[in-house]
C-alpha cells in the first residue's frame, strides 16, 4: 500500500518561476509512522541549478522529506511512504527502480560529516570506483579536481593518505562534499550541513554552495532563517509536515501570507 507505489504516474514537465525546468518533482508524498502523519500531501517542484531551502522549525518533516528524495527512508522500518518522486524519468519511490544509480544522482551532506573509514584520497575515490572506473590516473585526477572544487586540495595535498577522520570537522564536511561531487550528482541534498560547524567553516560551506549552484541543484534543509536569507533562491516553508508557503525568498519573507510563517519570521528574528 505504501512504498511499493500503487501506480507510477508519468512525470509531467513543469516550468518553474525561475526560467528553468524542475529537476525533481514530488507528487502526493505522504509519510506515516504507526501513530503519526509526518509528511502530508507534499507536492513540490525543485528548480534546476538553484538553491532550494527547506525551512521550518525542528520536527516539521524537512529531514524526512530530504531522505525520501534518495530513498534513505528505506532504512527506517517505522516509516511508511507513499506518492511519487520523479528525477528525470525515474520514480525514486518505485521499488523496481535502480536505487544505487538514482542515489548517485543525489549527493548527500549530513548534519555532521561521516568520513568513510579510509584515507582522504580513498574517500573521494570511493564513489568513482563504485561506478567501475579503474584507470588510476583518471581517479587521481578526479580526486584532485573535486578536492579543489571544495577548496580542500591545498590543505590536504601532502597528506592524501591520512585517514579522512584525521581532518578537522569543517574539513571533514568539505571532504564529504567532495566525495559526493566526485560521482557527478545532479542534486546535492544538504541536511543542516553547517549545524555542527564553527562560523568560519559554515561560511566556507555557504560560499561553496553559492558557487556550486552553477553546476548543481542544491536542496538545503535548515532551520536558520538567516542562512535561508543568505542562500536561498527558492524557499519552501514547512510546518507540521505540510508545505505552508513557498516562493522567492524576498517576496516570501517580506510578505508572508500565512500566520505560521509570520510567527516563524518574528521568532526567527
Amino acid at each position, binding site marked *: 500500500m505504501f512504498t511499493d507505489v500503487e501506480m507510477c504516474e508519468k512525470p509531467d514537465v513543469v516550468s518553474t518561476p525561475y526560467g528553468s525546468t524542475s529537476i525533481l518533482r514530488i507528487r502526493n508524498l505522504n509519510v506515516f509512522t504507526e501513530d503519526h502523519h509526518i509528511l502530508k500531501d507534499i507536492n513540490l517542484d525543485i528548480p534546476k541549478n538553484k538553491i532550494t531551502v527547506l525551512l521550518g522549525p525542528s520536527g516539521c518533516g524537512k529531514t524526512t522529506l530530504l531522505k525520501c528524495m534518495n530513498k*534513505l527512508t528505506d532504512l527506517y522500518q517505522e516509516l511508511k511512504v507513499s506518492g511519487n518522486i520523479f528525477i528525470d524519468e525515474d520514480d525514486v519511490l518505485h521499488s523496481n527502480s535502480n536505487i544505487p544509480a538514482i542515489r548517485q544522482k543525489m549527493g548527500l551532506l549530513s548534519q555532521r560529516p561521516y568520513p*568513510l573509514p579510509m584515507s582522504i584520497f580513498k574517500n573521494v575515490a*570511493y564513489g568513482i570506483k*563504485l561506478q567501475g572506473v579503474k584507470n588510476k590516473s583518471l581517479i587521481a585526477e578526479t580526486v584532485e579536481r573535486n578536492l579543489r572544487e571544495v577548496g580542500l586540495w591545498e590543505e590536504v595535498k601532502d597528506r592524501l*593518505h591520512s585517514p579522512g577522520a584525521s581532518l578537522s570537522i569543517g574539513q571533514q564536511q568539505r571532504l564529504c562534499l567532495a566525495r559526493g561531487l566526485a560521482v557527478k550528482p545532479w542534486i546535492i541534498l544538504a541536511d543542516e550541513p553547517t549545524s555542527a560547524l564553527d562560523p568560519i567553516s559554515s561560511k566556507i560551506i555557504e560560499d561553496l554552495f553559492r558557487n556550486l549552484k552553477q553546476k548543481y541543484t542544491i536542496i538545503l534543509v535548515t532551520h536558520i532563517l538567516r542562512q535561508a536569507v543568505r542562500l536561498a533562491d527558492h524557499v519552501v516553508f514547512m510546518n507540521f509536515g505540510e508545505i505552508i508557503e513557498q516562493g522567492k525568498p524576498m517576496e516570501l519573507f517580506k510578505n508572508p501570507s500565512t500566520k505560521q510563517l509570520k510567527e516563524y519570521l518574528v521568532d526567527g528574528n
Partner: protein
Amino acid sequence: MNRRKLIEERFFKLLSSIASYSLIAILAFIIVIIFVKGFHALTFDMVIKAPKGGFYYGGEGGVLNAILGSLYIAGGASIIAIGIGMPAALYINVNLVRHHALQNTIRYFLDALWGIPSIVYGAFGFTLMLYLGMNASLLAGIITVALLITPIMIRTFDEVLCTIPKGLLESSLALGSTNTETAFRVMFKQGFSGFITAILLAFGRGIGDAASVLFTAGYTDLIPVNLDEPAATLPLSIFFQLSSPIPEVRERAFASAAILTLIILVISLTARALSKKYSKSNLQ
C-alpha cells in the same frame, strides 16, 4: 560538597576500585599458582616433544601433540567462525537494518547458543559425527568447536557494528553503494577493531574448551597430519595429567596449563595491538 556526599563519593570510589583491582589480583593469582606449581616441569622438552612411552607415568616427552592439536582445532574453528560470523554480523546490521524484530530474534537465538554449555555441543558434535560415519578426528573437533564459537564471534562483532552511527551507513548508500559494498567496504572497515576482538574471544574460547572436543577430537600421543586423524588438545592433556596420582605428572599438568595460558596471552596481546593500531589510524 557536603559531608554526606563526600562519604558517599569516597565509599563508591573505594568499592569500585576494590572490584577492579580484585579482578586483576585474581588473574595474577591464577597465573602465579599455575607457574609456581608447574615451574619445575616447564622445560623446553615440554613444548618441542610429543609424549614418549610412559609419559603419563612420569616418563620422557612433552605436550607438543596437544599444543599443535589445540592450535589446529582452535585455528580451524576460528577460520570457519570468521567465514560464517563476519557476513552474518554484517547482514544483521546492514541488510536487516529496517527489520528490528528479525534482528532481535536472531540476536536472541545467538545469545541462547552462546549460553549453551560446551558439553552439549560436544554431545551434538558426537551425534553428528556418528550420523556422518566419521571417527573422532581433527575435523570433527574443528566442526564442533566452530559450532561453539561462531555465535560468540557473531555477537561480539555485532555489538561493535551496532555502535556505528547510522549516518555512516546512509553516507555510503547515498554514494550509490549496494548493501554488500556498504557492508564489506565501509561497515567492516569501521568495525575492524571489534572484528579482531571477536576473533580473539572466539579463539580463546575454542582453544580453552575441553568438553566440546572430549568426544569429537579424541586423544592421541601422535601429532595429527590429516584431518581424519584424532588430535590431542591442551585442556584434555591437562585433565588427563592432573588425574594422575604421580606428582611429576601432576606438575606437568600445571606446566601444560602455563603453556595454554601463555598461548592465550600472546594471542590476546597481539590482537589488542592490532585492534589498537587499526582503531587509532581508522584504516588508511
